[in-house]
Protein backbone atom coordinates (compact mmCIF):
# COMPACT_ATOMS: atom_id res chain seq x y z
CA UNK A 1 0.00 0.00 0.00
CA UNK A 2 2.92 2.31 0.67
CA UNK A 3 4.24 1.63 -2.81
CA UNK A 4 7.10 -0.46 -1.44
CA UNK A 5 7.12 -3.98 -0.02
CA UNK A 6 9.30 -2.96 2.92
CA UNK A 7 10.08 0.31 4.60
CA UNK A 8 12.21 1.11 7.66
CA UNK A 9 11.18 3.61 10.31
CA UNK A 10 12.61 4.55 13.70
CA UNK A 11 10.35 4.86 16.75
CA UNK A 12 11.06 5.44 20.44
CA UNK A 13 12.01 2.26 22.36
CA UNK A 14 8.92 0.45 23.66
CA UNK A 15 6.55 1.97 21.10
CA UNK A 16 3.54 -0.20 20.29
CA UNK A 17 2.51 -1.53 16.91
CA UNK A 18 -0.27 1.05 17.08
CA UNK A 19 2.35 3.83 17.28
CA UNK A 20 4.06 2.42 14.19
CA UNK A 21 0.73 2.39 12.37
CA UNK A 22 -0.12 5.92 13.46
CA UNK A 23 3.20 7.19 12.16
CA UNK A 24 2.52 5.53 8.79
CA UNK A 25 -0.94 7.09 8.68
CA UNK A 26 0.80 10.46 9.13
CA UNK A 27 3.03 9.65 6.21
CA UNK A 28 0.48 7.97 3.94
CA UNK A 29 -2.94 9.56 4.59
CA UNK A 30 -4.65 6.85 2.50
CA UNK A 31 -3.89 4.39 5.31
CA UNK A 32 -6.36 6.13 7.61
CA UNK A 33 -9.29 4.27 6.00
CA UNK A 34 -7.73 0.96 7.09
CA UNK A 35 -7.18 1.84 10.73
CA UNK A 36 -10.16 -0.22 11.89
CA UNK A 37 -9.71 -3.11 9.46
CA UNK A 38 -5.96 -3.67 9.56
CA UNK A 39 -4.35 -6.44 11.58
CA UNK A 40 -0.68 -6.98 12.27
CA UNK A 41 2.21 -9.37 12.71
CA UNK A 42 5.55 -8.90 14.44
CA UNK A 43 8.51 -11.02 13.35
CA UNK A 44 6.23 -13.27 11.31
CA UNK A 45 3.82 -14.03 14.18
CA UNK A 46 0.31 -12.65 14.63
CA UNK A 47 0.39 -9.71 17.05
CA UNK A 48 -1.90 -7.09 18.56
CA UNK A 49 -1.85 -3.36 17.99
CA UNK A 50 -0.85 -3.09 21.68
CA UNK A 51 2.23 -5.33 21.23
CA UNK A 52 5.37 -3.40 22.27
CA UNK A 53 8.19 -3.22 19.74
CA UNK A 54 11.92 -3.68 20.14
CA UNK A 55 14.83 -2.59 18.01
CA UNK A 56 14.97 -4.54 14.74
CA UNK A 57 11.43 -5.90 14.90
CA UNK A 58 9.80 -6.69 11.59
CA UNK A 59 6.21 -5.40 11.59
CA UNK A 60 3.67 -6.40 8.95
CA UNK A 61 0.32 -4.68 8.54
CA UNK A 62 -2.31 -6.91 7.00
CA UNK A 63 -5.21 -5.39 5.08
CA UNK A 64 -8.47 -7.40 5.18
CA UNK A 65 -7.66 -10.84 3.82
CA UNK A 66 -9.31 -12.58 0.87
CA UNK A 67 -7.63 -15.94 0.42
CA UNK A 68 -9.25 -19.22 -0.49
Amino acid at each position, binding site marked *: MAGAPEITRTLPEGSSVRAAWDSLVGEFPGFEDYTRAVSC*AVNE*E*YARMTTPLSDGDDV*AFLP*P*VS*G*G
Partner: protein
Amino acid sequence: MSDPRFRVTSDPLDVTTVSSIVSSADCGAVATFVGLVRNENGGRRVLWLEYEAYEPLAVKSFVRIDEEAGERWPSVGLAIHHRVGRIAIGDASVVIAAASPHRAEAFAACRYAIERIKQIAPIWKHEHFEGGEIWIEGATADPMDEDARRIAFGQCT
Protein backbone atom coordinates in the same frame (compact mmCIF):
# COMPACT_ATOMS: atom_id res chain seq x y z
CA MET B 1 12.64 -29.11 5.61
CA SER B 2 9.21 -27.54 5.70
CA ASP B 3 6.09 -29.52 6.51
CA PRO B 4 4.70 -30.85 3.21
CA ARG B 5 1.15 -30.56 4.59
CA PHE B 6 1.14 -26.77 4.68
CA ARG B 7 2.38 -24.96 1.63
CA VAL B 8 2.13 -21.71 -0.31
CA THR B 9 3.31 -22.20 -3.87
CA SER B 10 3.22 -20.60 -7.29
CA ASP B 11 3.00 -24.04 -8.90
CA PRO B 12 -0.30 -25.58 -10.06
CA LEU B 13 -2.06 -27.57 -7.33
CA ASP B 14 -2.84 -31.26 -7.50
CA VAL B 15 -5.62 -32.81 -5.44
CA THR B 16 -4.19 -36.31 -5.52
CA THR B 17 -0.85 -35.11 -4.20
CA VAL B 18 -2.42 -33.19 -1.33
CA SER B 19 -4.77 -36.01 -0.31
CA SER B 20 -1.98 -38.60 -0.45
CA ILE B 21 -0.04 -36.58 2.16
CA VAL B 22 -2.72 -37.21 4.80
CA SER B 23 -4.14 -40.58 3.73
CA SER B 24 -3.05 -43.63 5.67
CA ALA B 25 -4.10 -47.21 6.29
CA ASP B 26 -6.36 -46.28 9.20
CA CYS B 27 -8.28 -43.64 7.19
CA GLY B 28 -11.65 -44.65 5.87
CA ALA B 29 -12.32 -41.17 4.50
CA VAL B 30 -10.55 -38.28 2.83
CA ALA B 31 -12.62 -35.15 2.24
CA THR B 32 -11.11 -32.68 -0.21
CA PHE B 33 -12.01 -29.10 -1.02
CA VAL B 34 -10.79 -27.42 -4.19
CA GLY B 35 -11.26 -23.67 -4.55
CA LEU B 36 -11.39 -22.58 -8.19
CA VAL B 37 -11.05 -19.22 -9.91
CA ARG B 38 -14.54 -18.28 -11.12
CA ASN B 39 -15.29 -16.24 -14.24
CA GLU B 40 -17.73 -13.89 -12.50
CA ASN B 41 -17.74 -11.89 -9.28
CA GLY B 42 -20.28 -9.27 -8.22
CA GLY B 43 -21.48 -8.82 -11.80
CA ARG B 44 -17.95 -8.38 -13.14
CA ARG B 45 -16.54 -10.64 -15.82
CA VAL B 46 -13.35 -11.93 -14.21
CA LEU B 47 -10.36 -12.50 -16.50
CA TRP B 48 -7.91 -13.92 -13.96
CA LEU B 49 -6.91 -13.59 -10.31
CA GLU B 50 -3.52 -12.68 -8.95
CA TYR B 51 -3.03 -14.02 -5.42
CA GLU B 52 -0.49 -12.53 -3.05
CA ALA B 53 0.46 -13.99 0.33
CA TYR B 54 2.58 -12.99 3.28
CA GLU B 55 4.06 -16.41 2.95
CA PRO B 56 5.77 -17.17 6.28
CA LEU B 57 2.69 -16.11 8.22
CA ALA B 58 0.32 -17.81 5.76
CA VAL B 59 2.03 -21.15 6.36
CA LYS B 60 1.87 -20.53 10.11
CA SER B 61 -1.84 -19.73 9.79
CA PHE B 62 -2.37 -23.15 8.18
CA VAL B 63 -0.52 -24.80 11.08
CA ARG B 64 -2.73 -22.88 13.48
CA ILE B 65 -5.90 -23.95 11.64
CA ASP B 66 -4.69 -27.55 11.84
CA GLU B 67 -4.18 -27.19 15.61
CA GLU B 68 -7.64 -25.68 16.04
CA ALA B 69 -9.23 -28.45 13.98
CA GLY B 70 -7.23 -31.02 15.94
CA GLU B 71 -8.75 -29.85 19.22
CA ARG B 72 -12.24 -30.44 17.87
CA TRP B 73 -11.59 -33.45 15.61
CA PRO B 74 -8.47 -35.19 16.97
CA SER B 75 -8.69 -38.06 14.49
CA VAL B 76 -8.31 -35.81 11.45
CA GLY B 77 -5.11 -35.26 9.48
CA LEU B 78 -5.18 -32.00 7.52
CA ALA B 79 -3.20 -30.66 4.56
CA ILE B 80 -3.59 -27.21 3.00
CA HIS B 81 -1.89 -26.01 -0.18
CA HIS B 82 -2.59 -22.49 -1.44
CA ARG B 83 -1.42 -21.17 -4.76
CA VAL B 84 -0.15 -17.62 -5.35
CA GLY B 85 0.58 -15.59 -8.47
CA ARG B 86 -1.57 -15.35 -11.55
CA ILE B 87 -4.25 -18.07 -11.73
CA ALA B 88 -6.47 -18.64 -14.75
CA ILE B 89 -10.23 -19.15 -14.70
CA GLY B 90 -11.02 -22.73 -13.76
CA ASP B 91 -7.67 -23.38 -12.09
CA ALA B 92 -7.37 -24.24 -8.41
CA SER B 93 -6.32 -21.56 -5.93
CA VAL B 94 -6.53 -23.77 -2.84
CA VAL B 95 -6.67 -27.49 -2.10
CA ILE B 96 -7.55 -28.89 1.32
CA ALA B 97 -7.52 -32.57 2.28
CA ALA B 98 -8.86 -33.91 5.58
CA ALA B 99 -8.34 -37.58 6.33
CA SER B 100 -9.99 -39.49 9.15
CA PRO B 101 -11.10 -43.00 10.11
CA HIS B 102 -14.72 -41.89 9.50
CA ARG B 103 -16.31 -39.44 7.07
CA ALA B 104 -18.15 -37.07 9.42
CA GLU B 105 -14.97 -35.71 10.99
CA ALA B 106 -13.23 -35.46 7.62
CA PHE B 107 -16.05 -33.41 6.08
CA ALA B 108 -16.33 -31.16 9.14
CA ALA B 109 -12.60 -30.43 9.43
CA CYS B 110 -12.32 -29.77 5.70
CA ARG B 111 -15.13 -27.21 5.89
CA TYR B 112 -13.64 -25.65 9.01
CA ALA B 113 -10.28 -25.24 7.28
CA ILE B 114 -11.64 -23.28 4.31
CA GLU B 115 -13.77 -21.06 6.54
CA ARG B 116 -10.75 -20.25 8.72
CA ILE B 117 -8.48 -19.65 5.73
CA LYS B 118 -10.93 -17.00 4.57
CA GLN B 119 -10.92 -15.46 8.05
CA ILE B 120 -7.26 -15.41 9.06
CA ALA B 121 -4.79 -16.48 6.33
CA PRO B 122 -2.73 -13.46 5.15
CA ILE B 123 -3.56 -13.98 1.49
CA TRP B 124 -5.11 -11.46 -0.90
CA LYS B 125 -6.91 -11.71 -4.23
CA HIS B 126 -6.23 -9.11 -6.89
CA GLU B 127 -9.11 -9.46 -9.29
CA HIS B 128 -8.55 -8.55 -12.93
CA PHE B 129 -11.85 -8.12 -14.69
CA GLU B 130 -13.11 -6.74 -17.97
CA GLY B 131 -12.54 -3.02 -17.59
CA GLY B 132 -10.32 -2.90 -14.52
CA GLU B 133 -8.80 -4.48 -11.47
CA ILE B 134 -9.57 -4.47 -7.75
CA TRP B 135 -8.09 -5.86 -4.53
CA ILE B 136 -10.73 -7.97 -2.82
CA GLU B 137 -11.06 -7.11 0.87
CA GLY B 138 -12.60 -9.73 3.13
CA ALA B 139 -12.10 -10.32 6.83
CA THR B 140 -9.85 -8.55 9.32
CA ALA B 141 -7.34 -11.30 10.09
CA ASP B 142 -7.56 -11.85 13.84
CA PRO B 143 -6.95 -15.45 14.91
CA MET B 144 -7.82 -14.54 18.51
CA ASP B 145 -11.35 -13.41 17.51
CA GLU B 146 -13.46 -16.10 19.20
CA ASP B 147 -16.67 -14.94 17.51
CA ALA B 148 -15.14 -15.58 14.10
CA ARG B 149 -13.98 -18.99 15.26
CA ARG B 150 -17.46 -19.86 16.50
CA ILE B 151 -18.93 -18.83 13.15
CA ALA B 152 -16.45 -21.12 11.39
CA PHE B 153 -17.35 -24.02 13.70
CA GLY B 154 -21.03 -23.25 13.09
CA GLN B 155 -20.55 -23.96 9.37
CA CYS B 156 -19.35 -27.47 10.13
CA THR B 157 -22.17 -29.09 12.06
